[in-house]
C-alpha cells in the first residue's frame, strides 16, 4: 500500500467535512425556518463525527497526531480541504446548493468505499453511508422544491447558486499524485470515476428541479496542496480559538 497516498486521501476527506461542519454550524440560530436551523446543525454534528472517525484512522494506522490536535492544531498551509467548503455561507440558497453538491459527492464516494480493500475504511463507510442518506434527502428535497416547485424568485436564486457553486464543487475531485496506486490497490475507484458518477447523480436531480448545470466551467483547484481562499484563515482562527488557549485541556 502507498501509505503517503493513503494519508493524503484520508486527510483531504477529513478536512472537507471538518470545515464544512463548521460552516453548517454557523446556521445554528439563524436558519430561515426552525426545522432548517436544526437540520444544518444536526448535519454539522454528523460531519464532525465523520471527521473525527477519519482522524482516528489516521492516528491508529498512519502515525497521525491525536484527532483533536489534527482538527485544531494545524496551520492553514497544512489543511487539505477544497475551496468549496471554505466559502462563507452567503445566503441560504448558496449554502443549500453547496450542501447538495457536496453531499451527493460524499454519497457517491462513501458508497464506493464500502467496497474498499482498506478494511477500516470499508467498515466506516457502511455506517457513514446510512447517515448520508439523510443529508442528501434533506438537500435534494429542497433543491427540487425551490427549483421546479417553487416561485420564479426561488428558482432564479437556485439557478444562480448552482452557477456560482459548480466550479468549486468540481474541485472536490482534484486528482492527486498517489491516487493511481490507491486505485490499483482497490482502495477507491479514483477521483475521475467518482466525478462521473456524481455528475450522473446530480444531473438526475437537476432535471427534476428544472435547473441547468453550467457548461464550460472549469474546476477550482489548489486546496489539496495547501493553497486556500482568503476565507479559511479567519475560519480557523475562530474554530481553534478555545483549543489554542490550552491544547491539553480536558472537558
Amino acid at each position, binding site marked *: 500500500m502507498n501509505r503517503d497516498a493513503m494519508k493524503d486521501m484520508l486527510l483531504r476527506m477529513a478536512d472537507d467535512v471538518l470545515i464544512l461542519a463548521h460552516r453548517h454550524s454557523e446556521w445554528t440560530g439563524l436558519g430561515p425556518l426552525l*426545522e432548517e436551523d*436544526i*437540520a444544518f*446543525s*444536526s*448535519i454539522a*454534528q*454528523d*460531519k*464532525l*463525527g*465523520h471527521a*473525527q*472517525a477519519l482522524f482516528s484512522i489516521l492516528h491508529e494506522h498512519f502515525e497521525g497526531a491525536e484527532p483533536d490536535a489534527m482538527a485544531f492544531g494545524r496551520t492553514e498551509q497544512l489543511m487539505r480541504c477544497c475551496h468549496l467548503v471554505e466559502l462563507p455561507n452567503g445566503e441560504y440558497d448558496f449554502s443549500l446548493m453547496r450542501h447538495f453538491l457536496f453531499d451527493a459527492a460524499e*454519497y457517491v464516494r462513501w458508497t464506493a468505499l464500502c467496497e474498499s480493500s482498506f478494511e*477500516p475504511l470499508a*467498515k*466506516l463507510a*457502511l*455506517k*457513514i453511508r*446510512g*447517515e448520508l*442518506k*439523510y443529508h*442528501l*434527502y*434533506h438537500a435534494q428535497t429542497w433543491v427540487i422544491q425551490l427549483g421546479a416547485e417553487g416561485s420564479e424568485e426561488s428558482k432564479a436564486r437556485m439557478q444562480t447558486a448552482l452557477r456560482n457553486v459548480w466550479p468549486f464543487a468540481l474541485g472536490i475531485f482534484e486528482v492527486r499524485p498517489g491516487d493511481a496506486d490507491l486505485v490499483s490497490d482497490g482502495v477507491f475507484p479514483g477521483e475521475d470515476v467518482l466525478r462521473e458518477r456524481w455528475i450522473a447523480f446530480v444531473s438526475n436531480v437537476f432535471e427534476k428541479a428544472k435547473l441547468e448545470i453550467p457548461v464550460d466551467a472549469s474546476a477550482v483547484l489548489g486546496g489539496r496542496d495547501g493553497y486556500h481562499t482568503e476565507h479559511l484563515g479567519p475560519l480557523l482562527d475562530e474554530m481553534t480559538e478555545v483549543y489554542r488557549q490550552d491544547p491539553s485541556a480536558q472537558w
Partner: protein
Amino acid sequence: MTKDDVLSALLAVRDPEIPTISVVDMGIITNVTVHSDDNVSVCMTPTFVGCPAIDVMRSDVEQAVRELGVTTVEVSVTFDVPWTTNRLTEKGRAALLKHGLAPPEPYETLTLELDVLNNVACPYCGSRKTTLKSPFGPTLCRSLHYCNSCLQAFEGFKPI
C-alpha cells in the same frame, strides 16, 4: 460469571438521551467476552458516528461490569458491526414508544427516498395518517412528524 450475567448487568445501563431504553435493547452492545471471572471485554458501536453520548455510555458500561466484581474490564468502541435500527430489540421498541418516540420499523433496504419515514405510526393515537416534517430533530437519531388524526406533533426514532 457468564455472558448472560454481564448482559443482565448491562440492562441497567441506559441511554442518557432516552432513559427508558437500555444499551442492550438499543443493540449497541455487539460482543461480550468473559475471559475469566476477573476479566471481561465488551464491544460497543455508536448509533451515529458523531453520537455525543457514546463516551458516557462507554464509562457507564465499564462501571456496571466492575460492580459485578470484575477488576479487568476492557470496553472498546468500534465500527466492526455497524449499528442499524434493525438491531433494536422488541423490548427496545416498546421502550422508545413509552418515551413518546415512534419506533423505527424493521426494513430490508433503506432507499434514498426514505419512504419509510412517511406515514410513521403516531406514538399517541396509532394513526398512520402522519406527515414527515423534517428528517432532523433534537438529537441525531430523531425525526420530526405531525399526526393528521390527533393533530399532534411527535418525534420518531429514525431508521438507519
